């Protein structure tokens, strides 16, 4: 998926593909010749648990949010994660958690000139980052992946995401309608795959946190890994078909 591979895998059948590569890469350069080379984040990436940062142990909740959470915890105690965790019940992740959680699941980035896609394996989610897009219109409905727009700052891609579906005060990582996630993506040398994707994720959410939280995530290049199919509720269907019991709580 990297440029080197792109040009070494030449065969007769791929001549047309080569024409595509030349055009797509030539196009970015023609659009703005003054910018530094823009890195290509395309490829399959895995969170590097050793190199990545973590959420602070004590999060700087606003007094109002701290009070709400305490109330919620008291009302719902004891919390049974096998029953009360929405992700176990197949509800997909929400930003920023989907980028800051450390899982064994890869995600794939596919870059096209005006839109960068992130396809996650877990929950099969799709993020779309529109380059130099205008701010989302006020009618845009919130969603788990929000509305993302990116801009290049030198060799760094800055992605701003708003319109993120609010998470309840009791969830692991609550979010309000005011949540804005700013991600700074860049490539670095090193790591097991030789190449790392660094993502400095900053959460601005004045209704939840007194101050922004920044987590530096590092993803390693997962050469040869294909992003697989992830059908969370597969066991519900299997249970229906062969009579085994489902682990999904809402069964």
């Amino acid at each position: 998926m990297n440029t080197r591979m792109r040009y070494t895998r030449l065969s007769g059948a791929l001549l047309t593909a080569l024409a595509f590569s030349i055009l797509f890469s030539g196009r970015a350069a023609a659009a703005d010749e003054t910018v530094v080379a823009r890195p290509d984040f395309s490829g399959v990436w895995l969170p590097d648990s050793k190199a990545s940062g973590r959420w602070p142990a004590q999060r700087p909740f606003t007094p109002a949010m701290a009070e709400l959470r305490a109330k919620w915890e008291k009302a719902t105690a004891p919390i049974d994660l096998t029953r009360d965790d929405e992700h176990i019940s197949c509800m997909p992740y929400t930003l920023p958690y989907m980028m800051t959680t450390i899982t064994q699941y890869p995600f794939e980035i596919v870059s096209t000139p005006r839109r960068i896609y992130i396809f996650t394996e877990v929950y099969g989610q799709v993020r779309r980052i529109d380059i130099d897009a205008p701010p989302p219109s006020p009618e845009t409905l919130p969603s788990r992946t929000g509305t993302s727009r990116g801009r290049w700052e030198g060799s760094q891609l800055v992605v701003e995401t708003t319109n993120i579906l609010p998470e309840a005060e009791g969830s692991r990582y609550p979010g309000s309608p005011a949540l804005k996630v700013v991600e700074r993506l860049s490539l670095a040398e090193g790591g097991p795959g030789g190449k790392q994707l660094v993502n400095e994720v900053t959460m601005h959410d004045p209704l939840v946190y007194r101050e922004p939280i920044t987590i530096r995530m590092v993803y390693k290049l997962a050469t040869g890994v294909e992003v697989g199919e992830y059908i969370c509720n597969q066991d519900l269907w299997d249970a229906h078909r062969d009579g085994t019991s489902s682990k999904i709580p809402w069964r």
Partner: protein
Amino acid sequence: MSMRRTKSWMIAALLATLAGCGKSDGPGTAGAAADGTGAPIDIAGVWLPDASRAEPWPEQLPLTPAARSMVENFNPSEHDPTTFCMPFGTPRNMLQTDYPLEIVQTAQRVMMVLQPNLANSEVRRIPLDGNPLPESPDPSWYGTSRGRWEGSTLVVETIGLRPDALVSGNGLRHSEELRVIEKLSLVNVPERGQMLVDEIELHDPKAYEQPLKTRRYFVRAPQIQLREPTSCIELQWIDKLWRQRLEEHAAAGRKAGKS
């Protein structure tokens, strides 16, 4: 978005020139040749299926006795995976005409994204790297695909499809031997302009005595933004929360009644 389309034309035109086929006579004709001449075309973007142009299956499908009996005994509430928030799977996701299709295209791969109101986004990954299909991939909902450009036609072969998926909502099924061959190209349709056509062939000697063939047509829909497909699961989750809430109320009521 309109800028994006203009650029697409530029790419298509440039590619045509590069390949020396001389068919770069502007928008509306790029990819008109589905006969193997021409160069790869830009099919990236959001497409809306045209239900009115979808070719219905023939009255009498050449089904094997096993496949026929499955159609005859089909009960959607029991046998349709979508009743259980499961995916359409391939090729049903290409045959359906309710949800838009987003195509992501680079020189190395094509992704086809559908976001029906089920659980996951349905993402078909189609490498164009010239590698052959594996012998017997693990069965999956979207299968294992390889694509190649034949002139300005994208030919996609898909195998490794789960036989518990349906081909269509009336109970038509396939076996684990299904091989889907699709030919995607752009055609000019009078009064509709340029459309994407997917010629779909289903080869499955276990289920069909002859390959099944049909076509689906799509119009460009740059105004459509694909949304997250969580409603089916979301409803189940909300249902679970409310069921628990009601059970708690009932338990509290019983307790209050006793004391």
